C-alpha cells in the first residue's frame, strides 16, 4: 500500500531520523520510522473514535444495569455505578412484568432455548441435504426450485405471514413451539441451502466421482464423504442459525402465544409495557440478558462468524 511513500515524508519531517541520516555518509538511508507518522495518527485516531462510539451502548447497558434507580435518576448515564447492585438482574430474570405475567425473562429464555435447539438442527439438516443434492445430484428442475427459494429470500416475510398462519392452524401447530420450529426451518432454508450448495460445489467433483465408482450412493456419499469434510461449514451454519433464530422477533410474535413467546418478545413486552414505573436498570439488565447469548456466540466464534457473513453473502 502507500506505506513507503508516507513513510518517506515522515522521514523528511522527523528531525531525529534526518539528523541521523546526515551524520552518516553511506549511500543508504535509515529505515523510516513508521509508528508515529501523521497517517497513523489519522488512521488509529479515527478507528479509536469509531470504536468508542460502537462500544458506548454496551457500556451504558452494563453500567445502567448495575445501578439502583435513585442513582439513575440523579446521575449521568455514562457514570460508572457508585454502588454496584445485582438486584436489577435478579428482577429482570425472575420478577419483571409483561402486563400478562410477572415471572420475568426466564420464561422467554427457556422458550427461546426450546425453539432454537430443534430449529437449528432441523434447518441445518434440511439445508445441508438440499445443498448437497443441488451441488452433486442435479436432477431436472432442481435449479428451478432453488431459484424460487432464493427469490423467496428477498420477498418480504409479511407477504407470507398469513398463509403460514392458515397452514399452521390446519396442522394444529399454530401457537406451539413446533410451529415456530417449522417456520424457522422454512425461512432458514434459502440462505443455508445457498451456503451449503456453494460449499459442496467447492469440494472437488472428482472426489464425488471417485466415491461413485467406489459404489457409494446418495446417502453413503453424504454421510461418509461430504459430512466429515464439512465440519467448518456446519459450524458456520450453526452460528448463523443460533443467532438468527435467537434474535427473531417477528415470527415469535406472530406464530407464538404468550406462553410460547421467545425471549425477544418477552423482553419487548417487559420494557415497553405501559404499566407501572419504568425501571431503567431492570430494563437494561433484561436487554443485556437477551443479548448475552448471541454476544457469547459472537465472541467465542470470532473468525467463523465473519466467515459466515462472508460465505452467506459474498457468493449470493
Amino acid at each position: 500500500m502507500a506505506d513507503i511513500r508516507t513513510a518517506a515524508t515522515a522521514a523528511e519531517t522527523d528531525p531525529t531520523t534526518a539528523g541521523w541520516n546526515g551524520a552518516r555518509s553511506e549511500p543508504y538511508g535509515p529505515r523510516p520510522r513508521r509508528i508515529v507518522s501523521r497517517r497513523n495518527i489519522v488512521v488509529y485516531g479515527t478507528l479509536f473514535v469509531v470504536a468508542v462510539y460502537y462500544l458506548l451502548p454496551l457500556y451504558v447497558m452494563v453500567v445502567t444495569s448495575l445501578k439502583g434507580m435513585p442513582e439513575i435518576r440523579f446521575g449521568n448515564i455514562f457514570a460508572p455505578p457508585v454502588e454496584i447492585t445485582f438486584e436489577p438482574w435478579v428482577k429482570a430474570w425472575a420478577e419483571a412484568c409483561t402486563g400478562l405475567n410477572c415471572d420475568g425473562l426466564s420464561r422467554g429464555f427457556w422458550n427461546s432455548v426450546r425453539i432454537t435447539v430443534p430449529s437449528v438442527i432441523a434447518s441445518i439438516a434440511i439445508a445441508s441435504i438440499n445443498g448437497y443434492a443441488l451441488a452433486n445430484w442435479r436432477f431436472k428442475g432442481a435449479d428451478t426450485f432453488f431459484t424460487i427459494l432464493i427469490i423467496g429470500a428477498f420477498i418480504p416475510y409479511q407477504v407470507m405471514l398469513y398463509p403460514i398462519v392458515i397452514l399452521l392452524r390446519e396442522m394444529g401447530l399454530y401457537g406451539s413451539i413446533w410451529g415456530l420450529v417449522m417456520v424457522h426451518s422454512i425461512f432458514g432454508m434459502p440462505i443455508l441451502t445457498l451456503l451449503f450448495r456453494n460449499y459442496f460445489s467447492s469440494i472437488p467433483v472428482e472426489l464425488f466421482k471417485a466415491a461413485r465408482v467406489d459404489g457409494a450412493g446418495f446417502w453413503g456419499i453424504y454421510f461418509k464423504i461430504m459430512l466429515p469434510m464439512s465440519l467448518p461449514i456446519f459450524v458456520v451454519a450453526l452460528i448463523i442459525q443460533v443467532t438468527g433464530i435467537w434474535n427473531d422477533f417477528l415470527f415469535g410474535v406472530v406464530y407464538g402465544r404468550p406462553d410460547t413467546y421467545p425471549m425477544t418478545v418477552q423482553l419487548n413486552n417487559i420494557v415497553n409495557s405501559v404499566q407501572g414505573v419504568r425501571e431503567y436498570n431492570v430494563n437494561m439488565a433484561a436487554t443485556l440478558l437477551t443479548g448475552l447469548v448471541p454476544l457469547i456466540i459472537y465472541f467465542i466464534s470470532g473468525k467463523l462468524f465473519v466467515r459466515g457473513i462472508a460465505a452467506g453473502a459474498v457468493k449470493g
Partner: protein
Amino acid sequence: MSSVIVRDVSLSFGAVEVLKSLNLEIGKGEFLVLLGPSGCGKSTLLNCIAGLLDVTAGQIHINGKNVTWEEPKDRGIGMVFQSYALYPQMSVAGNLSFGLKNARLPKAEIAERVARAASILQIEPLLARRPAELSGGQRQRVAIGRALVRDVEVFLFDEPLSNLDAKLRGELRVEIKRLHQKLGNTMVYVTHDQIEAMTLADRIAVMKGGVIQQLDTPQEIYSRPVNRFVAGFIGSPGMNFFEGSIETNSAPVFKSGDISVDLSRYDFAGPGPEGRQVELGLRPEHVVLGHGADEMPVTAEVEVEIIEPMGSDTLVWTRYGGESLTVRAETDKVPRPGERVLVGFDPGRASIFDATHGERL
C-alpha cells in the same frame, strides 16, 4: 475380443455437442490413450465410459456387457483422477477399502486385496497415514491402488500425472507402464501431454471437437498424421508448415514463392494432387543442418535467426521461402545467428495437407 466398445456415442449439454456420434473399440489388454487439447471431449468420453455422465445417444459395452445405463460401480471399472480424489478423512487403508466395503465384501477378502495392492504399489508403510500426510507421488499411488483393489478388467485414468512435477511425472509414467505389463488390464488413459501419450500407448486416439481425428499407433501418428490438426498437435517443437501449391510436369512439384520441392519421392494417398493449394509439413528433426545436408534430395541455404539450446540438442530458427523453419541440430555443430548455413531434407518424410480441408494427401 474387445474390452470396451463405444458405439455412436453422442453427448450434448443443452445446445453444446461435446461428443459427436463417436465410435471406438478397445482391445483386451490394450493401452489406449485419448489425447487432445483441453475441451476436445477426451475427459468427457472417459466419464461416459465410467458412467459418471449419462450419454445422450449411443451404447457403451464393457467386457461384452451393455453398461450404457449401469451405475459406475457395476461396470467393472476402476478410475484414477487428476486431483487424486482421495477421501481426506480416511486413512490410506480406508481409502483403498471404501469401495470394497460398499460392495459388502467379507472382511478377510478386503484385507487380502488391500495388502496385495499395497505390495504391488509399494505403499505398505503408508497404510495408516492420512492423504494430507502423503507427497504428491504417494497420493497418486494410493489413487491407483484404489482402482487396483477393485479387481476390475478396465482401468480409466483421467490425466493422472498432470498435477505432479516433471521429474515425478517421468517416474510414475514408467511405473504405470510397468503396472500395465504386469497386470495386462485394459487401460484407457486421458492426457494432453503428448510425451505421455507416445511413451505409454499401444494406440493413441487424437481428439478434437468431440471427434476422434486419428486412431493409430504412436509411430504412425507421428510419421503419417492424417490431417493438419494432428500434424500440428503432435511433436514438440511443432512441425514446420509451408503454404503453396502443387504443379505437375513430369512429377509433382511443390511451389511456394521462389522455392520448389520435387515430390516424386512423396507417397501420395490419392491421385490428382495437381493444382491444389496445399500445406507442406516438415518435422524439425527431419531437416538436416550442416554436415550431411548436401546429401539430401532437397537442399537450401538459409540464414540463422535464433538458436535455442535445449541441452541434448539445439533448436535453430531460420527462414525458408519466407516462412519460419525450425531445425533440430546436434549441440556440437551449432551455427551462430546471422550465419548462412545449408539445410537439407527428404520430401519422402514430409507431410502434405490440403489447404482447405486439412486432410493428408
